[in-house]
């Protein structure tokens, strides 16, 4: 065990997989010589050489497509999309090609392709570099999607992704790259895709978080007048219905904490499924605590309000538990928004 920053945990996961399997290769913009724009591939070029660690031109369609082509012909590429927004110029390769390639090969091919992308708000990157965009990848049979919530999960999920024979996207919340945590490395630390992690237990409410919002939820629960099951979903596609449903069966209440906009954020899937499958268990309305329906604003003061913080989450849950009614988001209380 060692204390690692999330970016170091990512390097470690990549190195461990590259060590273990010579077919694992890494490429993306500035991932080789520079060690990655967020230093998530530092040292890999020196250690594994130019053949396996490559810088690319600014050509997301080109190199993501190359990742797919390499994946179906014997390699296990890990491709970096520097900011998740850049998938906007290359989504075809992931959703329409990679996710359907095994199906369209009649099962003759598999697609061991990993796409890593940084995501999320909090660092002042502005409206075109601060989103999470999970929903671009939703409703895509054939794809898997995991989201790291810190160094430990970044390590474990990434290793699982590299070992998986399907295309897997791993999102890395950018503000967490510098976070430190004790991280066990090695095979035992691999986190199987599709399993959620119950990070805290309690009786009053089930809080589901993902990526950055897991920490938010934990901090919200710390000093609250209620106790909560806090679930780090870890994998969004496929998500761990059993763990979530079992918790809700016990607590009777679901709160999903999301970085995404209110309309159509990833939590709609969880909320809808729980509302359907756990109807008899629910003692309060399923609740989503989200960002507002606006592009991510630049000024630090506004960006801090954009992302739901621990105090806000705690207060919203207080309201839910006290009133039994759906809490009103802050911007509606303040008469803002549409």
């Amino acid at each position, binding site marked *: 065990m060692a204390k690692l920053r999330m970016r170091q945990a990512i390097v470690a996961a990549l190195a461990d997989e590259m060590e273990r399997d010579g077919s694992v290769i890494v490429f993306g913009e500035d991932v080789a010589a520079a060690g990655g724009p967020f230093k998530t591939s530092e040292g890999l070029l020196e250690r594994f050489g130019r053949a396996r660690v490559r810088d690319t031109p600014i050509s997301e369609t*080109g*190199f993501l*497509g190359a990742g797919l*082509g390499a994946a179906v012909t014997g390699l296990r590429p890990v491709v970096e999309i520097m900011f998740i927004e850049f998938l906007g110029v290359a989504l075809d390769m992931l959703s329409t090609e990679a996710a359907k*390639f095994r199906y369209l090969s009649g099962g003759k091919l598999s697609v061991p392709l990993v796409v890593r992308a940084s995501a999320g708000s909090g660092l002042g990157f502005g409206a075109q570099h601060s989103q999470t965009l999970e929903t671009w990848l939703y409703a895509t049979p054939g794809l898997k999607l995991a989201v790291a919530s810190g160094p430990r999960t970044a390590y474990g999920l990434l290793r699982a992704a590299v*070992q998986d*024979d399907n295309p897997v996207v791993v999102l890395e919340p950018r503000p967490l790259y510098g976070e430190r945590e004790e991280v066990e490395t090695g095979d035992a630390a691999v986190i199987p895709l599709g399993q959620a992690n119950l990070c805290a237990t309690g009786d009053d409410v089930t809080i589901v978080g993902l990526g950055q919002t897991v920490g938010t939820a934990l901090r919200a629960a710390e000093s609250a007048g209620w106790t909560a099951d806090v679930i780090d979903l870890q994998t969004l596609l496929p998500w761990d219905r059993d763990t979530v449903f079992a918790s809700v069966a016990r607590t009777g209440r679901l709160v999903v904490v999301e970085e995404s906009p209110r309309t159509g954020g990833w939590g709609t899937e969880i909320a809808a499924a729980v509302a359907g499958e756990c109807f008899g268990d629910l003692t309060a309305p399923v609740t989503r605590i989200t960002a507002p329906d606006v592009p991510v604003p630049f000024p630090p003061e506004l960006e801090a309000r954009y992302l739901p913080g621990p105090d806000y989450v705690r207060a919203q849950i207080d309201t839910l538990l006290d009133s039994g009614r759906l809490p009103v988001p802050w911007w509606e209380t303040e008469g803002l928004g549409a």
Partner: protein
Amino acid sequence: MTATEALLDRRGGLRDRVARLERMLEIRALEDRVQALFSEGLVHGTTHTAQGQEAVAVGVAAATRPTDVVTCTYRGHAVALALGLTVEDVLGEIMGRTIGSVGGVGGSMHLCEPDVGLLPTFAIVGAGIPVAVGAGLSAQLRGGDDIAVAVFGDGATNIGAFHEGLNLAAIWQLPVLFVCEHNVYGEYSRFDLTTPVADVSVRGASYAIPSATVDGQDVDVVVAAVEEAVTAIRAGGGPRFLEFKTYRYAGHSRSDTAPYRPEGEMELWRERDPIDRFTERLLSEDALDAAAADAMAARVAARVDEAVETVKASPVPDAEAMFRHVYAPNRSR
């Protein structure tokens, strides 16, 4: 002979020039039949046939080997047959039967046979180009001298994936052959309405990729051009780009009667029909005699007839088929 051996045998047979003619005839016969089956209501959905383009497909297949990886488009029946897929593999897919190359769930636009190098064909214009580049990367890292081939249309040279794919192959000096089937049209638009250069091979210069424009209606010329390029690529010379001038006799897809063709254009191209030209040459060289030619035609017709019956008798996939192969099972390592 296993199914794989049979495919490899069909592919290997193309070493023989007469066999190339027979394969071209087979392609023509199947494509014509597909259109007829549509009219009879036996084929569903859409389809894109390649009558007129046989020499490019067969020439590329003849000058490469089954360990070379090929990406190709929705207009893929010809290339698939040339690479070695059987008429049943292709027609089975077109008709959505379990005998088809991906078990019937793909349809006309989605053929695949890794045994002879064919990756799933692409219904998105240009998408196969970067994917071939990735296959070239695998080949480069594996060592050896296998290559990857991307087959795409003239219209595809206007999409970003073309630009990015060629650039990446050049930067990484990958063993990739880019093959443009310049068949004069992208859907209903003549190429000059969408492309400001007459020969798209000039675009190779943007990536310092050696490129050429070649007659695509003469299979001998196609084979020679591909052989030369492939030899250079296998020797580590990096990517090449070949543009073959060819023509599609049918409309873009099933429903297209091609009212946009200028008068006389079709006739000019028909005069350069790749099958007629090659038949005449083989006859004049005494590589083929009239009786053998007739026998060949009859053989091909019979093969297609038989395949139609076989495919008709093949079951429609059951509902379970649509749930199969969505995800690969996790491997145990």
